[in-house]
């Protein structure tokens, strides 16, 4: 069981790096969506037998993260008529290197940080922290509104992975994470697709720079 679990987590880590190097926004949506499906399987593998909280966690993640939100994002992308992230603040190669460094650091520190033997044997803490870091990198270095939201979704994926450590003791943690997802979908629908695009005829957040000192 634990080998399958760690294999899935390695896939998540690889997807992180892949996202950092991809400029086509549609591909990034697909990768983040697939990542959502992969981490949706993880709760089913964490324990010897299935428990209700883990099944709920799994179903919620798969439905929201890999079906609902990617569809909203694809629709927003089509409405906005953009394809690529053209000029990120940090180039694609340097950001991959940065992401790889973040992954390495999280792998190094996480073993010492685990609170129980069982957690130390898995890559959960390392993957969670690395995914949060890489989501943060995307969020801060891309300029298209949609790319920033994708970075945010990735950051949430990391938080979701971490919440799986707590799901048995505090069943509501996963639902709390899901609220974040809902939050972001509402703000994607209402703000980006309707208003920024209408008012500025583009979704480049560099247009949003009138308010400054």
């Amino acid at each position: 069981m634990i080998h399958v679990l760690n294999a899935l987590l390695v896939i998540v880590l690889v997807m992180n790096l892949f996202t950092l190097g991809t400029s086509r926004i549609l591909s990034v949506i697909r990768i983040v969506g697939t990542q959502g499906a992969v981490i949706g399987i993880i709760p089913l593998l964490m324990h010897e037998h299935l428990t209700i909280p883990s099944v709920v966690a799994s179903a919620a993640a798969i439905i929201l993260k890999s079906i609902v939100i990617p569809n909203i994002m694809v629709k927003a992308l089509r409405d906005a008529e953009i394809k690529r992230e053209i000029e990120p603040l940090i180039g694609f190669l340097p950001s991959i290197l940065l992401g790889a460094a973040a992954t390495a650091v999280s792998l190094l520190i996480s073993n010492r940080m685990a609170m129980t033997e069982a957690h130390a044997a898995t890559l959960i803490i390392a993957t969670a922290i690395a995914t949060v870091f890489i989501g943060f990198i995307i969020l801060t270095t891309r300029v298209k509104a949609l790319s920033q939201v994708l970075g945010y979704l990735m950051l949430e994926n990391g938080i979701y992975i971490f919440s799986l450590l707590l799901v048995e003791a505090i069943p509501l943690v996963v639902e709390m994470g899901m609220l974040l997802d809902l939050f972001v979908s509402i703000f994607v629908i209402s703000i980006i697709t309707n208003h920024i695009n209408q008012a500025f005829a583009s979704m480049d957040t560099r247009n949003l720079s009138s308010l400054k000192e």
Partner: protein
Amino acid sequence: MMAYLLILLPLAAAALALAIPSNRLRPWLLPPIAATHTVLLGIVLARPELAKVSEELVLDPMGKVVLASISVLFLLCSFYSVGYLKYRDERSNRVFVACLLAFLGLISLVAWSHHLGLMWVAIEGTTLVSAPLIYFKHSKLSIEATWKYLLVGSVGIALALLGTFFLAYSSMRNGMEATLALSDLLARGPSLSKRWLHASFILLLVGYGTKMGLAPMHTWKPDAYGEAPGVVGAILAGGVTSGAFLALTRAYQICVASGEGAFSSRLLMFMGLFSIAVAGLFMIGQKDFKRMLAYSSVEHMGILALGLGIGGPALFATVLHVVTNSMTKGALFLSAGNIHRSFASKNTDTVSGAIRRLPLSGSIFLAGFLAITGSPPFGPFISEFGILNGAFSSGHFLAAGLFLFFLLVVFIGMGRTVLKVTQGEVPENLAETSYKDDFLMAAPTLAFLLIALILGLYIPEPARQLLADAAALLENRL
């Protein structure tokens, strides 16, 4: 029972507001709901046995102080909103009124919750319902402000959630299950994993600090406060920020309980002083007087963080500062809104002579400036002086010196802008606008200033006791 009423009544009223068809009558829903909220809260304050519903819903002294100041703030703002929305009746206020009411319900939940997960959900809710408030003017600039508010705010919220999870994980020791109940976490204090607690406190400080607007996570604040209507600015600067500060004090309490108070104090003092310094820097030469107020809010959040960091002798004044800051910010933001409407500008290049054009709002704005910068005899003087005194008496001489110096910078920077706005002649070529100070918009503004003044002159004994209890609670001595 009372807890549910305080939380659910405004939420139900929000749903009702969505259903009321008349744009003219809808805002009149705000004052009665706000007044009921204040009265109900008064009953809870008078009868301590009502302040605990379950392990998760407890209104402790700190929650009481925060919720009481927000309730009064909201009450006065609700009257002002009626006047404001009458003035803006060409636009639908359906979402605006509903979001204001929902905000009151959610912030009550923040104050009551003794479960850090529940608290986080409520704070996330307040962020979500305040976004349409900032967007009310539907201009290009307000879209930009809302976008930044949501993007920066949601990252803050995500980090706060991760911090909350880290905190829960730190309690998984000696075979114990993870928990997020405040009482459990405080009881297990010394056995919490230090590493995870440190990481958690940093994330919570950054996350809830973003919501408070501590530098360097304050970037959304000048934009949001600058573009939002004045009344929204008052509620954000006096209400949302106090709620986020309350969340931060919970993290502080847990750190103190686990013997890591020194760690959290250092960070808080650093962030506090840094915020005050950044605010002072950006206030110098600030031409937009609403953005100036936003930086003033950054400064006062810094003062709260600094006071909490100093701890011990400064805590009473810090808790008092939560109240004095919200009341003075109410006076400042509402009068700034009036001036903005009367001059149809918020830039000091076109706005001058506000005292001549709007004698009441102009004078309140000037007096509010004196109050917020800590001039006697207003309330903020007492609380800021108390924090300074606490810093000296606990041996933080460097922090106290820097604090005094930055306050001086803020006074000079803010003073220049405020004097430009209020003094001098009204520019001759300025078009007349339809706005005149009327009762609904001037009276609440004056009331805020009077409360700030009274707090500086005399604090009634029960209130003093409540503040002292809250200060004791922060160090887990209650």
